[in-house]
C-alpha cells in the first residue's frame, strides 16, 4: 500500500477532490442508494476532510482516510430515523431497474442478458438485506476491491472480523442464490 505525504498534499484539496470524488460518490451512492443523499454525503466527506486535514498522520493512504470519513458519515446518517423516513419517501432513490440496464453484456444472446440481469438483481437485493456493517464491508471488498487490511483500517475492525462479516454477507447471497436456483429447477 502506497503511503502518501500527509499534510502537504492535503492542502491541495482541489486535486484531492478531482482524484477521489468519483470514487467516494460511488461508495455513497451504492451504500445509501439515493442520488441526492449520495451527492450531499460526498460534499460532506470533503468538507470534513478539509476540516480534519491536520489530524491526518499519514499512517494510511489518502484514499483509505477518505473512505473512513465516508463510512463514518454513512453510519451516522443511516442510524437516524430521519434517514429511514426519507428513504421511504425519496423520489431519487435507486431502484434495481435503474441499475440493471448497466449490466455489461459480453454475450449478445438474449438468454445471457437475462441471466446476467437476474444475477445482478439477486446480489443487489441481497445487499439490501445485510446489516449496515456487513454491507459496508461487502461493498468495500466487492465494489471497491480493497484488500482486507485496507478494509480493516477503514472500519477499525480486526481482519478476522472483516472476514467474518464477508462470510456472512456471502452466506446471505448464497442462500438467496440457491433458493432462486432451486425454484427455477422445479
Amino acid at each position, binding site marked *: 500500500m502506497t503511503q502518501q505525504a500527509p499534510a502537504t498534499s492535503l492542502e491541495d484539496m482541489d486535486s484531492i477532490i478531482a482524484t477521489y470524488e468519483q470514487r467516494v460518490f460511488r461508495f455513497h451512492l451504492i451504500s445509501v442508494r439515493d*442520488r441526492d443523499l449520495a451527492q450531499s454525503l460526498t460534499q460532506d466527506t470533503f468538507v470534513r476532510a478539509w476540516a480534519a486535514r491536520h489530524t491526518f498522520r499519514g499512517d494510511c493512504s489518502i484514499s483509505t482516510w477518505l473512505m473512513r470519513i465516508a463510512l463514518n458519515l454513512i453510519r451516522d446518517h443511516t442510524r437516524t430515523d430521519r434517514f429511514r423516513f426519507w428513504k421511504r419517501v425519496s423520489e431519487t432513490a435507486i431502484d434495481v431497474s435503474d441499475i440493471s440496464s*448497466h449490466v455489461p453484456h459480453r454475450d449478445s444472446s438474449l438468454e445471457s442478458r437475462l441471466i446476467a440481469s437476474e444475477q445482478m438483481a439477486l446480489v443487489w437485493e441481497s445487499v439490501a438485506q445485510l446489516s449496515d456493517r456487513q454491507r459496508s464491508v461487502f461493498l468495500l471488498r466487492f465494489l471497491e476491491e480493497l484488500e482486507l487490511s485496507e478494509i480493516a483500517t477503514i472500519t477499525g475492525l480486526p481482519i478476522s472480523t472483516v472476514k467474518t462479516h464477508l462470510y456472512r454477507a456471502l452466506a446471505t447471497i448464497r442462500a438467496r442464490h440457491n433458493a432462486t436456483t432451486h425454484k427455477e429447477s422445479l
Partner: protein
Amino acid sequence: MTLHLTHEQLCELILADSSLQPDGESSNGDSDIVQAHLRACLICSAELRSLRDSLSHFRDASISYAQQEFAHSYARRSSIAPPHSYLSQPLYWTAAAVVCVAALFPLSMHRQRPISGDAPTISAAPQQTAESDAALLADIDQDISADVPAPMQPLADPTAGTTSATSTSDQRSN
C-alpha cells in the same frame, strides 16, 4: 456420498479472486484438494462460477451506473453558475433581455390600460337617467306642494263651472 466444499472454502475462493472476473483463474493460495474437488464436482464448480458471475455483474453495473450519475450531477453543478465566457455571448444577453421584458410585460399592461371609446356612451346613460329622475322628483314635489291635487282641481272652484254654464245658456238664449 460426495462431500462438497464448505462455505468457508467457497468464500476463500471468492475472496482470493481479487479481480472478480467471471472466468478468472483461482489464486495460488487454493489448496490442491479444493482444486481437485472443483474439477470433479460439477455442483460446486457451477455454484462458484455463478456466484463469481453475480458479483462481477453487480460490480460492473454499479460502477457504470455510478459513473453515469456522477456525470449527471457534475453537469448539473456546472450548469448552475455559467462560466465567465457566457457573459460575452450575444445569446446569453438576448435571453436575459427576453426574460426582463417578459417580467415587465404584465406591469406595463396593468398601468397602461387604454380608455376605450365607449366610455362616454356608457357614462351618458346614467347621466340621462339622473336627469329624468330629477324631473320626476320635481313633478312630485310640485304636486305635493300644491293646495289641491291635480285630479281634484275641477272640484276646487265650483263657480268656475257655473259661470261657464250660464254663459252657455246666455248664448243659447241669444
